[in-house]
C-alpha cells in the first residue's frame, strides 16, 4: 500500500466512522447519467449561478447601495463634479478604479443573461420532450419558480447601479405597483419609503438581491438537483433504453470529469465575454434623474417580452365609480403574465387530466410523437416572440427604417392571429414527420442509386434502415384517447357531463397520430 493510499484510507475511515457515508457513497459514486447535449442546458444554468455568486460577492466589497447624493470625484472625466447617488458613484468606481472590477461587473452581467437563457432553453427541452410527466411534476414547478425568481432577481440586479437607464426601469416598476386597484399608491409608498424615487429603494432591493433571493435560489436549486439525483435522469429513447432502466455513463470518473470540465468551460466563456464584449456601460447613461431619459430605453432580454406587451396595450383606463382602473398597465403587466406562468406551472396536471395517464414516464418523447403538446409549445413561443419583438420595436424601427406605428400594429394583430396559426402548422408538421418516419421504416432509406429495370423503367434503390433506427422510430407508445363513459353501468347519466365532454374533445385532439408501422405492415410490404 502506497503512502498516498494509506492517507486516503485514513481520511475515508475517519469520515465514515462519524457519518456512515461509505454505504451511500458506494452506491452513488457509480450513479449512471444518460448522455445527451440537451442535458447540459440545466448544467449551464447551474454553473452560471455559481459564477453569479462568485462575481457578485466580489462586487459587494465595493458597491455602496445608497441613494445618498454625492459629488463624483473619480477618474471618469465626463462625469466629474456631477451630483449622483452613492450607488452610481461606487459602480463607476468599480468600473474605473478597482482593478478587475469592470471585468467582474461584465462577467456578472453576462452570467445573468446566460443564466436566464439557459433556464429558458432548458425549460423548452423539458417541455417538448415531456420530461415533466409523472414523477417529475414537482421539479417542473420548482423550475417555473426558479424562472420567475430569476426574472425578478435579474431586474433588481441591473437596477442597483442607479443609472439613467435602470432608474427608468424602476420608474416603470413603480407605475405597475401604483396601478394596482385599491392598494396601489399605498404599496408604492411603502416600497419606496415615500414618493418615487426616494432614498430607500436601492438599499432595500440590495438586501433582496444579495441575500433573500439568492438564499431562496440556493434552497430551490438544492431540492431541484436532489430530485434529479433521486428520481434518476430521464433518457432519450433508443435501442436498449426502456422505462425500467437508465443507460449512460457512471459518475466516476467520466461524468465527473465531463461535468467538472464543463463548469470551467462555461466560466471560461463567460469570462471571455466579460473581457471582450462590453455590457451595460453605465457611465454612458449618466446618473438617474426622473426628468431625463435616454432614447432607445430597453430592458434586459428576459424582461423584453413584458415591456413589449405593455407597449402594445391599447389605451384603456376606465374610471369606475370615481376610481381609476389602469387596465392598460394591469392587463399586460400583471394579468397576462400571471395567466401564462400559472398555466405553465399547471401544464403537467392539465396534460395528465387530458390523457388520464397516471403512470411513471422516464423515456422522453420525440416532440413529433406528441403533436398536440409540441403545437401548444410552438404557439406559446410565438406569443412570447411577438411580445419580445415589440419590446424592441423602437430599435427595430430605427435600424430597419420602419414605422414604429406599423410594427406596433403588426404586433397587436399578430399576437392574436399568429399563435393559433403556429399551433395548426406545428401540429400538421408533427403528423407529417410521423408519416415520414412510417415511410422510412416501411420502405427504407433512399440511396440515390438509380437502376434500370429490364422493362426500361428507372427506379431508385431503397435500403432497409438499421434495426436500431427502426426501433427508434417505432418505440413510442400510441394509445387511443381516453374513453369517458357518458352513462354509468345502470344507464344513468354521469354528473359533470359538460366537463367530461370538454375533456373528451381535448383527449381526442391530444391522441391524434399517424399509426406507427408494425411487423404485420412490414410483412405486407415484403409481399409486393
Amino acid at each position, binding site marked *: 500500500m502506497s503512502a498516498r493510499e494509506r492517507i486516503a484510507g485514513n481520511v475515508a475511515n475517519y469520515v465514515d466512522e462519524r457519518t456512515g457515508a461509505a454505504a451511500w457513497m458506494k452506491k452513488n459514486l457509480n450513479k449512471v447519467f444518460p448522455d445527451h447535449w440537451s442535458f447540459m442546458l440545466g448544467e449551464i444554468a447551474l454553473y452560471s449561478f455559481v459564477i453569479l455568486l462568485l462575481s457578485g460577492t466580489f462586487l459587494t466589497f465595493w458597491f455602496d447601495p445608497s441613494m445618498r447624493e454625492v459629488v463624483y470625484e473619480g477618474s471618469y472625466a465626463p462625469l466629474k463634479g456631477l451630483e449622483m447617488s452613492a450607488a452610481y458613484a461606487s459602480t463607476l468606481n468599480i468600473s474605473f478604479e478597482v482593478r478587475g472590477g469592470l471585468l467582474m461587473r461584465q462577467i456578472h452581467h453576462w452570467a445573468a443573461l446566460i443564466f436566464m437563457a439557459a433556464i429558458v432553453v432548458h425549460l423548452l427541452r423539458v417541455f417538448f420532450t415531456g420530461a415533466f410527466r409523472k414523477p417529475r411534476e414537482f421539479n417542473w414547478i420548482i423550475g417555473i419558480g426558479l424562472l420567475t425568481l430569476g426574472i425578478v432577481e435579474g431586474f433588481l440586479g441591473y437596477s442597483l447601479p442607479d443609472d439613467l437607464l435602470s432608474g427608468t426601469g424602476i420608474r416603470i416598476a413603480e407605475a405597475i405597483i401604483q396601478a394596482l386597484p385599491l392598494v396601489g399608491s399605498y404599496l408604492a*409608498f411603502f416600497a419606496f419609503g415615500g414618493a418615487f424615487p426616494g432614498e430607500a429603494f436601492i438599499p432595500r432591493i440590495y438586501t433582496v438581491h444579495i441575500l433573500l433571493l439568492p438564499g431562496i435560489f440556493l434552497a430551490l436549486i438544492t431540492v431541484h438537483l436532489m430530485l434529479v439525483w433521486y428520481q434518476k435522469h430521464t433518457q432519450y429513447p433508443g435501442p436498449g433504453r426502456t422505462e425500467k432502466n437508465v443507460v449512460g455513463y457512471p459518475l466516476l470518473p467520466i461524468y465527473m470529469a465531463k461535468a467538472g470540465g464543463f463548469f470551467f468551460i462555461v466560466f471560461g466563456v463567460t469570462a471571455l465575454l466579460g*473581457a471582450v464584449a462590453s455590457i451595460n456601460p453605465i457611465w454612458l447613461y449618466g446618473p438617474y434623474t426622473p426628468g431625463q431619459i435616454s432614447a432607445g430605453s430597453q430592458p434586459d432580454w428576459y424582461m423584453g417580452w413584458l415591456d413589449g406587451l405593455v407597449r402594445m396595450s391599447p389605451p384603456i383606463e376606465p374610471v369606475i365609480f370615481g376610481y381609476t382602473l389602469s387596465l392598460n398597465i394591469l392587463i399586460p403587466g400583471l394579468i397576462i403574465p400571471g395567466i401564462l406562468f400559472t398555466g405553465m406551472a399547471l401544464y403537467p396536471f392539465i396534460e395528465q387530466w387530458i390523457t388520464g395517464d397516471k403512470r411513471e414516464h422516464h423515456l422522453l418523447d420525440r416532440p413529433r410523437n406528441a403533436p398536440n403538446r409540441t403545437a401548444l409549445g410552438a404557439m406559446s413561443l410565438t406569443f412570447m416572440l411577438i411580445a419580445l419583438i415589440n419590446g424592441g420595436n423602437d430599435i427595430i424601427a430605427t435600424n430597419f427604417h420602419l414605422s414604429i406605428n406599423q410594427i406596433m400594429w403588426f404586433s397587436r394583430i399578430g399576437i392574436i392571429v399568429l399563435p393559433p396559426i403556429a399551433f395548426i402548422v406545428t401540429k400538421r408538421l408533427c403528423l407529417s414527420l410521423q408519416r415520414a418516419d412510417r415511410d422510412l421504416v416501411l420502405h427504407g432509406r433512399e440511396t440515390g442509386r438509380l437502376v434500370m429495370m429490364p422493362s426500361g423503367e428507372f427506379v431508385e434503390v431503397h435500403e432497409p434502415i438499421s434495426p436500431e433506427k427502426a426501433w427508434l422510430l417505432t418505440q413510442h407508445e400510441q394509445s387511443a384517447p381516453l374513453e369517458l363513459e357518458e352513462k354509468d353501468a345502470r344507464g344513468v347519466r354521469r354528473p359533470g357531463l359538460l366537463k367530461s365532454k370538454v375533456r373528451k374533445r381535448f383527449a381526442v385532439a391530444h391522441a391524434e397520430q399517424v399509426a406507427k408501422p408494425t411487423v404485420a405492415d412490414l410483412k405486407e410490404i415484403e409481399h409486393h
Partner: protein
Amino acid sequence: MSKEIEVIQDPGVPAHKLRQTDIDPKAADRAERQVAILFLLSALSTVLFIYSYFFISTETFIFIPLMGEQNAHQLFLGLGLAFSLLFIGLGAVHWAKTLMPDNEVIAHRHEFRSPDSDREEFVKTAKEGAAAAGLGRRSLIKRSMGLALGLVGLSPIFLLRDLGPTPGDDLKKTSWKAGTRLVTDPGDRPIKPEDLEIGAVAQTLPELPAGKDHRPLSDIGKDAVLLIRLRPEEFNLDAERLSWTYQGIIAFSKICSHMGCAVALYEQQTKHLLCPCHQSTFDVTRAAKVIFGPAARPLPQLAITVDEEGYLVAQAPFSEPVGPSFWERSA
C-alpha cells in the same frame, strides 16, 4: 387494440465501440500529451492574468481590429482569466473523452411508490400520532391553535407597515403654484418668452423658494415641465386651453401619463411628443392628446403667463395629478 399487434423488436444496447486510444497505446500517449498541453496553456494564461494585474496600467489603451480602442489592462486581465478557466475545462473534457473508460452502463429503475405494507404502516403511525396528541378529541385545543397560528402570521405584515408613509395627497400635488417662475434645467435661469425661438423646446423646473438650494429627485419626478413654442395659429385648442398658453408657448408635464417616464422626444416637423419607454405619442397642437400608444390620458398642461418682470410663470398649479395613474386619481 394496438397491444395485440406485434411491434418491431428492440435490438438492445449497441455493442461498445473501442476508440483509437483504447487499442493503440501511441494514440493514448498522444491524447495524454494533448491533455497536458491544454492544462499547461491554462497555467500560462494565469501567468498572463497576474502579469496584466500588476504590470499593465489601467490607463493603457490599444487598438484591436474590429473592436476598436480597448483598455489593455481590462482586456488582458479578462483574456488571462478566460483562457486559464477555458483550458482547464477543455483539458478535463478531452481527458474524459479520450482516456477514461466509456463503457455504457445500465442501471435499473424502481417504481417510486412505496410497498403497500409501508404505506399502511405510515398511515397507522400518523393516525396513532394524531390520536396520541388528542387532536381528534380535544377540539378546543384544535380550534384555539388554529386561531393562534392564523393570527401570528399577521405580525410580519404589521411590522412592514413602517416601510413608508401613506401617500396622502402627495401624488396629486406638485411644487407649481400660481406665480412660480419656470427656470431652466440645468442652470436654474428664469426664462423670458423671447428666449425661446419658434420650434424650440426647453426643459424646466419650478424656481426654488428662497433659502432652498436643492431639489429632491422625488420633486423633479413630479415637477419637470416641457416648454414648446409654436406659432400661435398652429394650435388647435379650445378657448380655455388656449388661454393657458402664452404667445405660442405651451407647457406640459414631462412625466408620462402612462408609466412616468420622461417624455423627451419631440418631433419638430409633426409637433409630436414621443415617450421613449412605450412609444405613447402626444400631439402638442391639441393639448398633448394621445394619438398613439398605450397612454390613456394627455400630458397635463400647465397654464402659463408672464410676471411683471416679463419672466414666464405658472398661472395656477396643475389642474390634475401628473404622472402615471393610480386608484384614487380621479376621486
